[in-house]
């Protein structure tokens, strides 16, 4: 199987190109979709033309609703929302319209739309309105699916599944991952939404993390192993809704410990949901309480210096994980 080392951004682009070539109903829309600040859709207008690569005005709610209308009437729009923070502007279109259309219409209208939630998360110092981790927010709306890949391989497989899903899918992209490189097969493959993966095997405890935080967790777990001999398993759910609890339960059955590392805040966050679910269903598999490592409960400051105090960093994650094994 031929594969090549490409960036996360290139992997998404490859997935988009494959699906656009296969299906003329697939089209792109968003702000600056031609040149594109994240380079994901750059140049695609030359290949697919202006009918299928549509520049949209700064009207996130309007064009996300348009994507819903288009999806319901026989096309498959892939919408880029430039920064995750802007989903709050488009909240009505996504949470009131896309999530509910099929249900309210008595299954008459489907809504096979993909919202690419680009530029998510901290790390570039972009401040409170361009750095948030808002993936927990759409989790609250039945009808929406949420994918959040952490590797180029997963990104390509998941964007292709998102486009072919009959439900609205929010595909989150962490801004620090765009330049991350990884091996990606040149042939077609799909990763089902709702299927997690153990990214590193271990026996002493299970870390659940995703996106950029997952990379830090992988580094930290290697260091902890070499320094302390603690062998941690690292689980990447890859999708947040539906969430693959089966694989997580198999992991904690083996390790007996659960540590959740996330970039959003704790209250009402992704980790809150995971820990509540595990507590309800499988608390007996754990031999110590659940640990959550998350951002400080503050809005996000501008500048990388400020970010380093708010977001969990490598040192803090490592320290708090080691503490789990000291009590």
């Amino acid at each position: 199987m031929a594969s090549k080392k490409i960036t996360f951004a290139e992997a998404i682009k490859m997935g988009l190109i494959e699906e656009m070539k296969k299906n003329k109903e697939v089209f792109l829309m968003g702000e600056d979709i031609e040149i594109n600040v994240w380079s994901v859709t750059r140049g695609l207008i030359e290949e697919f033309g202006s009918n299928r690569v549509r520049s949209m005005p700064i009207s996130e709610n309007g064009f996300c609703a348009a994507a819903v209308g288009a999806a319901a009437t026989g096309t498959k729009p892939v919408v880029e929302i430039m920064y995750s923070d802007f989903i709050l502007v488009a909240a009505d279109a996504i949470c009131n319209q896309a999530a509910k259309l099929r249900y309210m219409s008595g299954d008459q209208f489907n809504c096979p739309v993909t919202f690419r939630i680009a530029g998510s998360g901290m790390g570039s110092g972009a401040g409170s309105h361009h750095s948030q981790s808002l993936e927990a927010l759409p989790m609250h709306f039945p009808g929406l699916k949420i994918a959040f890949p952490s590797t180029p391989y997963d990104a390509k497989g998941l964007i292709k599944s998102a486009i072919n899903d009959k439900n609205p899918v929010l595909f989150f992209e962490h801004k620090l991952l765009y330049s991350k490189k990884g091996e990606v097969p040149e042939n077609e493959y799909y990763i089902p939404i709702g299927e997690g993966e153990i990214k590193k095997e271990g026996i002493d405890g299970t870390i659940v993390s995703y996106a950029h935080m997952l990379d830090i967790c992988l580094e930290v777990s290697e260091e902890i192993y070499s320094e302390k001999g603690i062998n941690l398993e690292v689980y990447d759910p890859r999708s947040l809704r539906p969430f693959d609890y089966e694989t997580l339960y198999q992991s904690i059955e083996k390790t007996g410990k659960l540590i959740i590392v996330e970039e959003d805040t704790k209250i009402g966050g992704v980790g809150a949901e995971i820990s509540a679910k595990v507590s309800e269903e499988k608390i007996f598999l754990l031999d110590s309480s659940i640990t959550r490592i998350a951002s400080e409960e503050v809005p996000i400051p501008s500048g990388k210096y400020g970010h380093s105090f708010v977001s969990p960093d490598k040192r803090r994650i490592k320290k708090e994980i080691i503490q789990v094994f000291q009590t």
Partner: protein
Amino acid sequence: MSVQSVKPAYDSLHYKYQDIIREFGKEKLKKILINMLKTRYLDQEIDQLIKEGIPITQHSTYGQEGSQVVAASILEKEDYLVPNHRGWGWAIGKGLSLKKILAELMYKETGYCKGRGGPHLASKEHNLFLRVGIQGSYAGLAAGIGLSIQMKKTKDVCMCIFGDGSSNAGYIHEGMNIASTNKLPLIFFCENNQYALFTHYEKTTSVKDLALRALGYNMPGYIVDGMNAFAVMKLFSDSIQIVRSGKGPILIETKTYRYSGHTAYDNFYYGGYRTKEEVDEWKKKDPIHFYIEKLKYFDVLTEEEIIGIDRNIKREIKEATDYAFNSPLPSKDNFTRVAYLD
């Protein structure tokens, strides 16, 4: 583009009824009368059912039949319609069945949306999009349907209905801008019934004539007397033809009036937030009465034919109510096991 390009269209002094009658023909004119009467009797039936204690969400069409019903009746079956909350005229105009409408309004399994939508009607077979519950979102959704039509290269058009109240929602402006810049096949149909709930629109709206907003979006804007079905059918028919030919969207404002309250529970509509005289004055211009008088005067339909039509519709309404009452309620699964589509 200039202010002059937004103009009152087909003012009663300027068009000839006979020309319109000849253009549309007896069958089409009769169909429009049937739809107007069906809408009025459906409203009356729903009000009666509410009085009897049946819980139905009612935003009646009374007074707006000449505007809403006529515009929706002009569309072809394949054309799309994105409705707003006001009335059932768009559903009747688009050809939905009275039985399935009433069944849905009573949350029955046999309704269009399996009893999940209630007043949020939709009918895919009629290309009637869901009557969503967020004011103004219609325009964003309709713009997307326009994109879809353009992608598929069909000759369909999409009509988007909104009121004077939601004309101020950001969604309407965003949708009109997207439609204009993409030259989408859309009719933006602003039904100006003058009241947003209990508030007269002029208190909250920057312009008296909402069609003026077309200027900002570089599209033609027209104003028409919504109490005159002939003027409405002519303007919509001509506009739809232009939009269908690929020339981009058009905004039409109908000047009309909501006889009753915002909902069946509005007790302030007659002598509260507006005077009884104002309401009575508008009722003198009743669109159905006006339409029937003209049809008789120009020998399109006889008194006997109209009585026959009237009798048939009343019977159909009765049958529809019986159908809705006799339909089963949906199972629990219909409501709870539907989060994802496999």
